[in-house]
């Protein structure tokens, strides 16, 4: 724990955690309010009419997906906005002139995003207990999938921020790609309800695998084989981290 790289990693991580907790009204409160509305409207009001889905109560069915949705958007959004703000204010130069290796910079920001994603996930999960009863079907699957998902999307957020040249650029991907993929990722429905061709199309959506595997960890129900989700998560993890590190090493968007 005395190694300079560890101290540097811890410094970046604690700075990121301090940042999102300092502005908790912007970072932690909105997902809590949004998800409570989802629980009330989709779970209680509409869910009562739907009945059960894949053999479980509809409210129980949507809770894992809503937790995952919160983790995905917040881990992504934390890194993309924080790293881009550092670029915009030029405070990223504090890191660029220092002897912190690029892989430590990457991990520091990514785990800062993971921390916010998991914090929001825990808040949403605690709120869901007001509306339904949850039992953990497989703790290892539940924890490992949510952690890997948070890491994957935090890394994607970092790549977005590296390429971004203006604030609009960090909102385009969440608005036009991430949100549609999340809504179509089986949060509110089982893909088995869809016509065959749309089931096939849905299976191209990586978020479907993450949501279903997490759902399997909590309620033991999934539309897809759990192992394939792990394979896909590790492929995404390796590809995105490799890409992010390459961009940092070449100084893309950071050094002229």
């Amino acid at each position, binding site marked *: 724990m*005395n*190694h*300079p*790289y560890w*101290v*540097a990693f*811890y*410094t*970046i991580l604690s*700075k990121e955690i*301090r940042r999102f907790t*300092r502005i908790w009204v912007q970072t932690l409160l909105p997902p809590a309010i949004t998800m409570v509305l989802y629980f009330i409207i989709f779970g209680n009001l509409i869910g009562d009419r739907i009945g059960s889905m894949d053999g479980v109560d509809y409210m129980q069915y949507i809770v894992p997906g809503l937790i995952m949705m919160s983790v995905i958007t917040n881990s992504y959004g934390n890194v993309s906005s924080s790293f881009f*703000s*550092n670029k915009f*204010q*030029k*405070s990223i*130069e*504090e*890191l*660029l*002139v*220092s*002897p*912190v*290796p690029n892989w430590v910079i990457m991990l520091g920001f990514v785990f800062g995003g993971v921390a916010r994603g998991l914090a929001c996930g825990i808040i949403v999960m605690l709120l869901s207990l007001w509306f339904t009863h949850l039992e953990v079907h497989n703790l290892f699957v539940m924890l490992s999938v949510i952690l890997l998902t948070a890491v994957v999307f935090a890394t994607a957020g970092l790549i977005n921020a590296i390429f971004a040249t203006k604030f609009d650029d960090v909102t385009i991907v969440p608005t036009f790609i991430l949100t549609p993929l999340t809504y179509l990722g089986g949060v509110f429905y089982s893909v088995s309800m869809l016509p065959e061709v749309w089931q096939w199309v849905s299976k191209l959506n990586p978020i479907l695998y993450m949501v279903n595997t997490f759902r399997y960890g909590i309620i033991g129900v999934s539309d897809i084989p759990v192992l394939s989700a792990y394979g896909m998560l590790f492929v995404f993890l390796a590809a995105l981290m490799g890409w992010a590190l390459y961009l940092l090493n070449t*100084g893309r968007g950071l*050094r*002229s």
Partner: protein
Amino acid sequence: MTLALDIQQLRKVYDNGFEALKGIDLRVDQGDFFALLGPNGAGKSTTLGIVSSLVNKGSGQVRVCGHDLDTQREAVKRSLGVVPQEFNFNSFEKVDDILIQQAGYYGIKPKLATERAEKYLKQLDLWEKRDVPARMLSGGMKRRLMIARALVHEPQMLILDEPTAGVDIEIRRSMWQFLRELNAQGTTIILTTHYLEEAESLCRNIAIIDSGEIIAQAPTRQLLQGKQRSTFVADINQSLTEVPDLNGFNCRLTDDGSLEFDIAHDDNLNDVFAQFQQHGLVVTSIRPKTNRLEELFVDLTSKQPKQEGAA
């Protein structure tokens, strides 16, 4: 002795095709107080940007305190403290957090980082502001904060890119005193500045860069001795309507009725006064028209052909 900075044939062409550096050589001794001067867009910030890893190098070699930038970048970064031209801290963070975090990036653990932050905030008169968000500081305080931040890992060499830009004269002089003391303790200091009196007053060695080329590099004293001609302004005890004929000296009347005259390096001021006396003129005061280094700077840089574009 190992050089603090050894630059050989450094070139940089930006993506837009602008050639910012055309193969410069620059050597700075350890313990030196060195100024890199030049007009806007001359290549000063590009040079310092490359040395401090903020700008990618084109070609050439850069060594800092004996460490090669290409193969020992981490050691180069540990040797350097950088004070950039523009404010580059998170303005929402507290003053002491900014220093403690920067120390953390250099692997300094929180306890020592906190002690160092206290030491440098006190030295730079910012201790009272330690709990204040950086955005609440005045311009001079922000500049001093960046100096404190650059020193928190106690580097061998400090690079300052226009450290006193926009700072009032009182704070500027206290910053000069601080930098002199730091240099006396052994820290090599390299600065760029547009205040040429600052360079003349502080720096033992000077390099002048223009259009991506080093056009002069020498000890400050030697550089100034090489200056061929100076211009002085004399206030006279009467208002003049015509320029008196001062034999051998080019003389002009200024708007406020003073006399401006040029004098060559090997001329004698007594000869000028003798001629004033012959014309019945009493000189009540005399001063150089501009700082000596400023005149030299203008002489040298005005001879350089200019190119389009800027970094």
